[in-house]
């Protein structure tokens, strides 16, 4: 491309430092917000005002911030659940199913301990909460492991399997919580029985303890990939299954492992939303909505290029914008799904800006006029 005597030169990057990626992402976010302001202008709303409302509600408001954090924890766990198989070169599209399985696991523990009884029994949180967490992890892991097993043994496409498992898990939850299901709410209403207050997840400064879980998982994953033997094996398989196999790494073991662990983390996301977020404490009627929300894990994982630590700010941004977007929609009376539209524009921009991860661009002054192509007589 040429403008005047300047030409746009595009050069392949040989390496990309972390800070460079961060700066590119920040530019992408600014660009996306600028782009989206067209929509606000069309709706005759000052975009600066709209963004101020969105960000102040999401990150500085006593009501909005806890919502943001809860959503952030959920998205971050789903992102980690995506990243673990992703680093092994495998695609986990099954976070919704795995988190449903996790939620079912957690509520099965309650059910077994008589948590469904009315009035709510006084259960011991020191025993039940760890048990619920383990059950949630196992539930997600079990569902994930199916895809990993099939991939490793028969090379079945893991995207298809995890996707299909989402449907199975979705209807399994429906079966469990709707009319006649064992986890049915005594009052009907198409939702599960409520968590007895005695085993509500403890809050730390107004947010459930699971926030530390999510951050801990991200940090642990970073360490695992960077330092450990198993992390090395996963990464080797991710870059080249053939080379990894040559080096003695069993593809079956890797795919089973990453899907089981990824599923376990997604299962914790299920525990988080249905057993730890204040005001929910049950498998809600709208559980399908949270399943859809889990797909943000895919986009956050891709944007952070599979880096579990880089996923933290990305998940926070997505959590915040989805809360703030929904809020501003009511406050400024905009008649459409601002939150989804904004997130969509942001996703596309971030993905498009990954061009700059691979290429450097610069305007250079060209000397002579470029020759036209063709054959000279």
């Amino acid at each position, binding site marked *: 491309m040429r403008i005047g005597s300047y030409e746009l030169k595009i050069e392949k990057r*040989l390496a990309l430092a972390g800070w460079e990626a961060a700066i590119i992402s920040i530019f992408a976010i600014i660009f996306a917000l600028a782009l989206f302001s067209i929509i606000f202008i069309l709706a005759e709303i000052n975009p600066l005002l709209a963004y101020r409302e969105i960000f102040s509600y999401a990150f500085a408001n006593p009501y909005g911030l806890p919502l943001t954090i809860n959503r952030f924890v959920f998205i971050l766990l789903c992102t980690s659940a995506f990243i673990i198989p992703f680093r092994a070169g495998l695609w986990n599209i099954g976070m919704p199913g795995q988190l449903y399985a996790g939620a079912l696991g957690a509520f099965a523990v309650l059910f077994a301990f008589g948590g469904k009884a009315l009035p709510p029994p006084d259960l011991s949180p020191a025993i039940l909460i760890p048990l619920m967490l383990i059950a949630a992890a196992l539930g997600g892991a079990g569902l994930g492991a199916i895809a990993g097993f099939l991939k490793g043994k028969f090379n079945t496409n893991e995207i298809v399997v995890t996707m299909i498992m989402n449907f199975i898990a979705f209807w399994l939850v429906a079966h469990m919580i709707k009319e006649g299901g064992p986890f049915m709410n005594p009052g009907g209403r198409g939702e599960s029985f409520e968590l007895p207050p005695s085993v509500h997840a403890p809050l730390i400064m107004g947010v459930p303890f699971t926030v530390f879980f999510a951050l801990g998982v991200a940090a642990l994953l970073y360490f695992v990939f960077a330092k450990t033997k198993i992390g090395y094996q996963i990464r080797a398989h991710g870059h080249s299954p053939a080379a990894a196999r040559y080096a003695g790494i069993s593809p079956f073991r890797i795919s089973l492992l990453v899907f089981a662990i990824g599923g376990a983390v997604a299962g914790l996301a299920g525990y988080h939303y249905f057993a730890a977020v204040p005001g929910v404490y049950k498998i809600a009627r709208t559980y399908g909505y949270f399943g859809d929300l889990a797909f943000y894990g895919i986009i956050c994982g891709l944007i952070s290029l599979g880096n579990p630590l880089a996923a933290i700010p990305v998940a926070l941004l997505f959590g915040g914008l989805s809360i703030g977007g929904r809020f501003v929609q009511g406050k400024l009376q905009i008649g459409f799904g601002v939150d989804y539209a904004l997130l969509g524009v942001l996703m596309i921009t971030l993905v498009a800006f990954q061009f700059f991860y691979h290429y450097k661009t610069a305007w250079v002054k060209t000397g002579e006029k470029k020759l036209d192509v063709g054959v000279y007589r």
Partner: protein
Amino acid sequence: MQKGLLEGIERGETVLEARGITKRFPGVVANDHIDFEIRAGEIHALLGENGAGKTTLMNILFGLWQPDEGEIYIGGKRVIFRSPLDAIELGIGMVHQRRKLVSAHTVIENIILGHPRAGRILNLKRAEEEIQELCERYGFNVALRAKVWQLSEGEKQVVEILKTLYRGAKVLIFDEPTSALTPPETKKLLASIGAMATDELAIIPFITHKLPIVLAISDRVTVLRHGKVTARLETGRVTEKSLAKKMVGREVIFRIERTKVEKGKPILQVENLSALSDKGFLALKGISFSIREGEIFGMAGVSGNGQHELAEVLAGLRRAEGGKVIFEGKDITASSILERWETGIGYIPCERTEVGSIGDFSLVENIAMNFYFDDSFSRRGILDYGKIRKRTEEIVSEYDVATPSLDTKAKNLSGGNLQRLILARVLSRKPRLLIANLPTQGLDVGAMEFVRNKLMEARKEKAAILLISEDLDEILSLSDWVAPFYEGKFMGIIPGEEAKRESVGAMMAGLCLEEQET
């Protein structure tokens, strides 16, 4: 578009000229003001190591890339190629090393594919007659109605040549013309190239190794090194040694010194082994052999005869259908890949970039491929990257791997350097059995010499070595046993001293000793 720039050109006139061709890539100048010129009826070889800039120049002459500076002239007229199509229109033909043919189609269909006359209605009959005429003129022998997948590598190359000739090419660029051919096929090809040259075609073979070929056929040679022309010579006045020196920039030893090594106990015994290829055909048909300590067992054969499958079965990457593999007295037929690494089997695969290394991994992480499982390189599941880095440092300096840093990604190494890295990594495990699958394929003279010397060193240290190679000279100069391999079977296992070039070459092509004698 102007056609026919080369019509009616006389023998000895310049057909193609490149002046001051310069092409830069990030960090390197691949071509630095290269001048090159070829006349009608001439064979003008371009010689250079990997990374000398041959491929770049070839792609520029064929219109795939645009030079940053410099001009190309055809028949004295300046031209600019926007794409290979322009080059083809003007009479430049390229015979690729990796064949670009449609394997389910017949030879004729492949030849006329993309031909301007084959626009909508195919006149196969007329095409067949014309192609047959070309075949007769240049001594090509190929069944025009056969499907391409039925052909050997040599025949496929003939199809590529016919394809470019049929499109009216006056300048033929050959990328490593003999690299995949058996000795008899090579001989035939050289004769045909000679016939084409007498017919006023200009021929440019690009060559990295196999210097004797250059000497045998070309009229002139241009040598490239580090992107620059280092010599322009009449072939009559050069020797193999002086050419190699110009190419590498120093003296190259061609004869490997073979020291006497005490032969010890058998390390590998293979009994009646059979295995399937990826396509499900029987690739190994019940073969038996053994290798002792300090021996190089040279398996000579053209790729695709089952050597690759054998290497993979021995390394544990492929299942044996029948038979036994015994390593140091233990039956390892069913052992896992990891167990084999741990007990002292080392495998150097021929797929350097797909299997032997991980392009997006740093050198350190690539070295870890053979050490991550070693208890001395990890503690409680945490890898000792410090120690692996140290090992990498040792390897890089001892094996002279040219790299900006240890954190460079493997995909940025040249082919020769990558092979040094893989070889070093496997050898530094001090394997008792080393399987080297095409270890010098595609390497330049300098790197080739290095790899061969390292194999000889490993032999001195009493490793048993299975050397798989297509290069007969390599097999003959290194091996204690020479075993020509054809269609899943050994055609013979001959002591190194007794192996003769001609008979082994014939056996590689499937002829039995008895058949030759009668």
